């Protein structure tokens, strides 16, 4: 089966049972185990299936492709595309470009870390939010800016964050046109 078909078929980050997902991985591995250079495509597909690369999946891949664990881990570590941390339902990215940085992006980031009790690159324990930083989203006039999934939130102050996050947590974000809070 061609690689693109696999990616299209992958369920993505839904709530499927890990057993089911591992069974899907077995199918992929059966197709790829004798293909030269299969490691990276298999990792991409696996990440699409699970939403991240769990250790159990990496072990399965190493065994099926007859590669040492460490080699698989080395490839996963090298490409920033791959993540071994489960991704939350929503990705929160804080802009730390020059404009956002001087207008308080750093304080926003600190507040987010505190609210979600995670560091950059981690996922909150309820798996709702992952936290990341970016270098300029091209919205310097609206600084400081954060993005949650595809929504841009402008002129964010730390005090507004609990309310913003709560709207995503409760799933009531679709009716505000994705533009989040304005600075009232």
């Amino acid at each position, binding site marked *: 089966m061609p690689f693109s078909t696999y990616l299209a078929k992958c369920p993505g980050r839904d709530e499927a049972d890990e057993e089911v997902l591992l069974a899907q991985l077995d199918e992929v591995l059966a197709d790829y185990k004798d293909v030269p250079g299969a490691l990276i495509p298999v990792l991409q597909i696996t990440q699409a299936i699970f939403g991240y690369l769990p*250790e159990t999946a*990496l*072990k399965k891949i*190493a*065994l099926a492709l007859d*590669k*040492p*664990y*460490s*080699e*698989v*881990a*080395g490839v996963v*570590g*090298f490409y*920033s595309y791959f993540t071994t941390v489960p991704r939350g339902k929503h990705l929160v990215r804080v802009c730390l470009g020059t404009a956002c940085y001087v207008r308080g992006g750093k304080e926003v980031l600190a507040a987010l870390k505190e609210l979600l009790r995670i560091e950059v690159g981690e996922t909150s324990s309820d798996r709702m939010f992952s936290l990341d930083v970016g270098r300029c989203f091209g919205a310097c006039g609206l600084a400081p800016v954060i993005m949650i999934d595809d929504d841009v939130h402008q002129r964010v102050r730390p005090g507004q964050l609990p309310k913003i996050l709560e709207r995503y947590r409760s799933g009531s974000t679709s009716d505000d046109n994705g533009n989040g809070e304005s600075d009232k």
Partner: protein
Amino acid sequence: MSDELLPHGHPTRAPASQRGRTAEVLEHAKTLGKEITATIDGREITVPLGTTILEAARKLGIRIPTLCYHEDLCLAGVCRICVVEIEGQRTLQASCSYPITAPIKVSTHTAKVRRARRHILDLMLANHYGECYACSRNGNCELQALAEEYGVDYFRFGRMERPKYEIDMSSHALVRDMNKCVLCRRCVRTCIDLQEVGVLEAIDRGSHIKIATFGDKPLADVVCISCGQCINRCPTGALRANDNTDEVWEAIDDPTKHVVIQTAPSPRAGIGECFGLPPGVPMTFQMNTALRYCGFDRVFDTNFAADLTIIEEGTELLKRLHKALTGEEADGNENARTGPLPQFTSCSPGWIKFAEHFYPDFLDHVSTCKSPQQMFGALLKTFYAEKAGIDPKNIVTVALMPCSAKKFECNRPEMCASGYKDVDYGLTTRELAKMIHEAGVDLPNMPKSDFDDPFGTATGSGVIFGTTGGVMESAIRTVVELVTGKKIENLFDHADVMPVRGFEGIRYAELPIAEIGSVPDIVSHLFKDWKWLTGATLKVAVAHGTANAKRVMEDIKSGGKLSECHFIEFMACPGGCLGGGGQPIPTSPEIRAARAKAIYDEDRAYSVRKSHENPALLQVYADYLTDGPCGHRSHALLHTHYTPRGKYIA
């Protein structure tokens, strides 16, 4: 050996990166000719096309500093300390990985080169935590030597004030201290290319990069076979053996303890290197004196146990052969569960752990004999304790080994035949050298002295256990003589079994057994008659380095020619024990060859060169192991069992 025996057609290990290079060179050779003349520091040299600048410079006697480069490993070109200037090129080039394919003009120490090297060094030192005087590699560190060579007298880019990583002390054999790592990746290449185990890998990128195991797990929880080859190639103190000298000193200083040491054959051939001697100067009898100066109560020769191994393992082989050829158990006992052929040797603890991890389905092929170290330990706390009238709980057995995996082996829970640990501490050659230095003893100038009784001096067969092919050679000397009644000298000049010697990765030999002679007492009770063996051809193979072991195992798995072998010797380390992970650093093919020569010379010098002629050994069978080789007592003391461990999970 011919290529057909090998699944991949590579008689010796050629890392993938170097196989590629050869093909590229041949392509160029069509248009450019086979040789090329380059100029290095104004001196012309003609070399085969594709020779690297580094190799060419070495031929001219020009020294270019290296760090990630190692003769045993494929090229990496990551450390950049070997940069040189090539006329007409804007940037400096790494000489270790620059093949000469044009008549280039190279300068190896221009101002630009020196400045760059100093910068590279300063950057490495900025990320290197630790004080030289509190480091196991003090005086034997390649980074320290480079810093001296380039006149480093301050930290231009600052230095690490506190350690960044926790030291991994989980393994009995190895300690990893990544704070001292310079990211040369020699350990990675050793593990994955040379040994084909693949425990270590560079993880992450840029300033976050580090050498780690899968999931950064402790070494004890991954498939590390404890061979220690990475230690021998680490330029700094980032990898070292788990040092037991403090515990051994403590035992020596305790008047209630009777501390005995057994010394393996390889450390004698290597320890001189720690005292400024060239490789290959044997120190056997000087070391005996030095050990007594250090305070050991008795000094024994592990070779005695090597001879014992030959008798036990040879007997086991005969039983397996009998079962394979006749379909019956040796003594008619249906419950004997004699293992299948080929029989694998069990002396190398690195190989044992490798087999437990990667070939758990083949563990019944591995001889049940303990390694010589463990056999000796068991005998010391039983037979010797009885004879000397010492309570085994007061005996501390120390083993001097060329090996880091021996430290793992002596801590295996099943190795407690007397109710106490068979071997309390395994010391590496390097650790003993340190103890001898600490005791103020000048080893090379010590008077010579002999080993202690009741085990005496062993035979030449025991000595050659230290080199690849040695166990097989000893086994052949003994089994052939016992069975045919003919002197082995009739088959091989001076009893040197040349077909199993050398450093080729995998070696194969056949020995026809034309007739059966009068079988001596020690094994004659095994079978009522020996006719079944007449006309058989004994097929044996030898492999050293786990990459070659893997090749043999894959051949056996696929039913290849090696699956018809009767007996296969496996050694985890390239070159056998003399290249072990506990031997003096550095290591190279030349150093290992010199140590091998020392071992074979010592074998030649022995008057008794066959295990079954060792008088002390025959006495032990007469007095203590009275039901003979592979009898009940020998099974209880000298044999063991193995543990399947998942392929990639410890």
